């Protein structure tokens, strides 16, 4: 892996980074928004995941997916606030292995969702509303649920394994 520390130090010296660190309230504001974003994302995605795994049979799979635009709003909120944290203190994240695990699980969740959307979603909509789902759908739901909670775990553990906050 290329050494990211020169980039991190450059980023840390930018006016944007200075501004983020000089504001007393920006950091807690972004953290609050980050928690609201994760609630939207994990709540709505988790609902669809559980449906794909075979829970909530009274909810058609297509309907369980209808709230996903709000999950994407949550995701966008967390990417934006996450970038604020990263610009504010780049070294502590790049140097933290839990942060890289978090990025890895984000990628897994993204690939899993892309697989569902391109290969499975259309087939799922054609199924009987309350019917049993193919094993691939159950697996996608399970992988998604596990990845998002792993993202959460790694994000919170940043502060304790590797000393970021």
């Amino acid at each position, binding site marked *: 892996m290329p050494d990211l520390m020169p980039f991190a130090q450059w980023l840390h010296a930018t006016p944007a980074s200075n501004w983020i660190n000089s504001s007393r309230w920006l950091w*807690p504001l972004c953290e609050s928004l980050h928690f609201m974003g994760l609630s939207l994302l994990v*709540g*709505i995605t988790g*609902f669809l995941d559980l449906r794909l795994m075979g*829970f*909530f049979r*009274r909810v058609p799979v297509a*309907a369980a997916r209808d*709230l996903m635009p709000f999950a994407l709003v949550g995701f966008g909120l967390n990417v934006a606030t996450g970038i604020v944290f990263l610009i504010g203190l780049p070294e502590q994240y790049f140097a933290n292995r839990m942060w890289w695990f978090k990025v890895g699980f984000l990628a897994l969740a993204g690939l899993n969702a892309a697989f569902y959307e391109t290969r499975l979603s259309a087939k799922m909509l054609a199924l009987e509303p309350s019917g049993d789902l193919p094993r691939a759908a159950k697996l996608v739901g399970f992988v998604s649920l596990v990845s998002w909670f792993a993202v959460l775990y790694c994000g919170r553990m940043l502060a304790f394994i590797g000393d970021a906050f």
Partner: protein
Amino acid sequence: MTELFASIEGSALAAWVRESPSIWAYATILTLHTVGLAIVVGVNVVVDLRLLGRAPRIPVASLRALFPIMWAGFAINLTSGLLLFIADATTKSGQRVFWVKLACITLALLVARTVATRLRHDHPGNLRALAVTSLVLWAGAIVAGRLMAYL
């Protein structure tokens, strides 16, 4: 009251949560508190958005199945929250924002219980006001919880 909180904080359990270098002490308890938050607020977000008219293809009555998940998440957060509280009982009990957070959570849970009860009826009526109240209270609980680390 202050003496009570001081004696709680002086207990062996509180000292373990606060001072143990083990990853299973403070770090894991705090992480579980975030996992529980995602479950509790996440379920409420799904229920509230549906009650506000989003995703109309989701049958409203089916939302009832989500509440046991919310209560499981709350059990995680009540337990982890109590452990985090006793670790710093004197400081936290002296923070006004801590009591604001508890008030938001108590009211939000009462709203959730009311919604769950109304959903048991054939005609639950208009629950939009309760849904908005719920979203505002959970956002308030999150902000107040975060501010505990800064005020």
